[in-house]
């Protein structure tokens, strides 16, 4: 099937097998290896991307279902070489260790602030429920989201 979609501001058109998962399409056809596959069952969130403005797990969606969509992956977050404030915040606050969950975690964190620019700790933790990190214990991730919120407010 032929699909056309916008990814990180560029238009892509490919003929794909109907069963091709979106995450495999992004990683192997388009060459964006930022979204990671951590569980194949939408439980870990390492593959989280933004699709039409919503954070979704790209491992449990077919590429053909994304036909016509606007997609943002971690690779599209920095603009003109300038890191997104959430990326900066993860860096400054040590919100990552092995980094495998990080692309999905940053996209999910961005969504939290998109919906609520001033979340409480509890709201941040609730917003991160769908993303597993095995390294950080989440505390520095919570700090990062708070720091990014503060950076927006400033």
């Amino acid at each position, binding site marked *: 099937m032929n699909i056309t979609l916008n990814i990180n501001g560029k238009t892509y058109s490919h003929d794909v097998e109907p069963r091709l998962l979106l995450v495999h399409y992004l990683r192997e056809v388009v060459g964006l290896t930022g979204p990671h596959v951590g569980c194949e069952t939408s439980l870990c969130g390492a593959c989280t991307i933004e699709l039409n403005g919503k954070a979704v797990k790209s491992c449990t969606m077919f590429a053909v279902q994304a036909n016509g969509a606007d997609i943002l992956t971690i*690779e599209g977050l920095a603009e003109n070489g300038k890191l997104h404030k959430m*990326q900066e915040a993860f860096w400054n606050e040590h919100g990552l260790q092995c980094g495998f969950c990080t692309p999905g975690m*940053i996209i999910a964190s961005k969504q939290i602030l998109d919906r609520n620019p001033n979340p409480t700790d509890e709201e941040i933790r609730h917003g991160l429920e769908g993303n597993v990190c*095995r390294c950080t214990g989440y505390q520095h991730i919570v700090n990062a989201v708070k720091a990014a919120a503060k950076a927006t407010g400033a």
Partner: protein
Amino acid sequence: MATTTTKTETLVGKRIRRREDPRLITGTATYVEDIKMPGMHYAAIVRSPHAAAKIRSIDTSKAAAHPGVAAVFVGKDVAGVGPVPCGASLPGLRVPHHSILATDRVYFVGHPVAVVVATDRYIAADAADLVEIDWDVTQAVADPEKALASGAPAVHPEWPDNKAFDFHQEHGEIDKAFAEADVVVKQRITSQRLIPTAMETRGVVAEWRAADRALTLYTSTQIPHLVRTLVAMMLGLEENRLRVVAPEVGGGFGSKLNVYAEEALMGFVSMKIGKPVKWIESRRENFLTTIHGRGHVDYYEIAAKKDGTILGIKLKIIQDLGAYHQLLTPAIPTLSVLMMPGLYRTQNIRADIVGVFTNCVPTDAYRGAGRPEATHGIERMVDMLAAELKMDPAEIRLKNFVHKDEFPFPTATGLTYDSGDYAAPLKKAMDLAGYDKLRAEQAEARKQGKLMGIGISTYGEICALGPSPATPAGGWESATVKIEPTGKVTVMTGASPHGQGEETTFAQVAADELGVDIDDILVLHGDTSIVQYGIGTFGSRGTAVGGTAMYFALQELKAKLKKFGAMMLNSDDVTLANGQCVCNKTGAAKSIAEMAAASYRAMALPPNTQPGMVSTYFWEPPNFTFPFGAHLVVTDIDKDTGAISIRRYIAVDDCGNLLNPLIVDGQVHGGVAQGLGQALWEQAVYDDNGQLVTGELTDYVVPRAHMMPWIESSHTITPTPVNPLGVKGVGEAGTIGCSPAVVNSVVDALSPLGVKHIDMPMTPEKIWNLVKGAH
């Protein structure tokens, strides 16, 4: 051009953001799964759905005929490949032959039986389903105590008692200690099987270049050099023809401190088909076939005087080994024995281990590896003893601690504790908590029928693994430091990291030692064709052993720089500091870049000095290090639901000097999360048929953000004399300190109901039943 920037600010001890992060936060880091090569094929592995079965026949014809399939291999095809190695040795150890694909029998669910190789991962998966195996299913045993019972099914028919080894260690006068005791407390304590769950599963890309007789393995590992040596032996390939690369590694926690069948298998496949081949473990495969941790049933006895003085400890460990030995499987419980006295002075111990085969995936090193089990046990026993003697749990600990003027302290298990002030973190944690006030509040809460608990653990650990005679594979670590002709500094560490931030902490140390800008330093690791032989990152050794190797390489380079400086300044009286060599008489100076350039240009050389500015150092540690600390946890229990809520989590850790407190905090937080996971949620459950019931993240509950309490982390600092950096290691501290503090807190909360012990994980159901049973 010589461009090294000099600097005067000290970086060690600063909260510096990590130098490895830019590639990770932009999604541009390269993990194994991100590697793509021309002509690359994909492998899918056919695994046993049974825990114990004989293979009557395997029919691969349909799979082989499937369009896009390049090859299918089964056990007999890989008969020439050596077994998966066990690096541990114990007297009388039974080591089952562990072939990389099963031949006539399978021993656990997930046991690899065949590999299907195709042009595309989807095709490989399709074709794997077409492999037909005729099974003769036999009886399995998945529980180690049941496996020891007479008449239990034999995991390996040649050893009907299912025992892999017996181990005994004793010190002091244990029988006398128990005979003279006023009180003896006994308890069976389990430390359940856990699934390490690194976010990146295992994966291998193998690339064979026949014309060069060269094989490259990209594998998600903590130990690239050991993988090189052992996989070369398995494949019968000359070691210098095998390059192993650990690219970005997405977490390990011990689960990648191993050599797995699939690493050799992919090498074999690539050599057979002459194409690169990739295998990426699915999460389900990861749960079924990557090593698990823990798996202890422990029987403790502790003897004491009325005043709380501990007289002796007895321990019998039943270790669930699983079906095979992986790299260190049988050695792990021996670490528990070493750690069993905890921070306490007693010299009388008796320990027995029985290693038991079960039809489960092997257990091996998982964060803490033997030490969390021991710490959990001793810290529970000390609490039970305090309860028996009606003493405060803090008081009984303070009474029995090795005193701060007793170091170096020889323990009952043959270790020499390096340095410590064990009372300091406990007192600090109690101050931070407002301990006396909390106890008063608890008394008040109890009057109102509320269940509030205060739990303490004071843990010690064995880190910086370790002196080579005490480790299975050599316990040293290596570093090379090169100052390039333009003055830029390249550090190569043998301690291949996977999230620990060594690219940052090592650069901090090197920048300080050389007096150069941190941006002039690059830290490389993980590629055996670039980095000198090394051991790896595990056992809280990366910085304490690997960092120390770099420190000594830097000292050698500094001495050499000084020689060049003296020659170039034509002076015997020079000082090397702040990135330059200064003549103390004239004040004339040469920068590190100038001296490096001169060393390579070699127009003139100092006496007995080689050109170039490179130093390689292999550091053999004279001892382990022994970090310690105190965790204090306040819990409230909901009587109606059994839910445990953690009101305060205070962690005071002493890991010696802190190179980068930001990174240290991260290690503590992550460690606590895994300890809390064990205390409250995580458990690998096998049913009686050896099926893994908790086979996905739906059923195996790892902590998520909303489940974690805020961790109040702080430190006391007692540098180790074992290494010049004074660092002890912090990778496992959080995990080791956590679980006993949490269980002690919940038992304390439920103690008015007569509860004395709770095994982990303390699920709401378990707590609810305890509360209900008390009424």
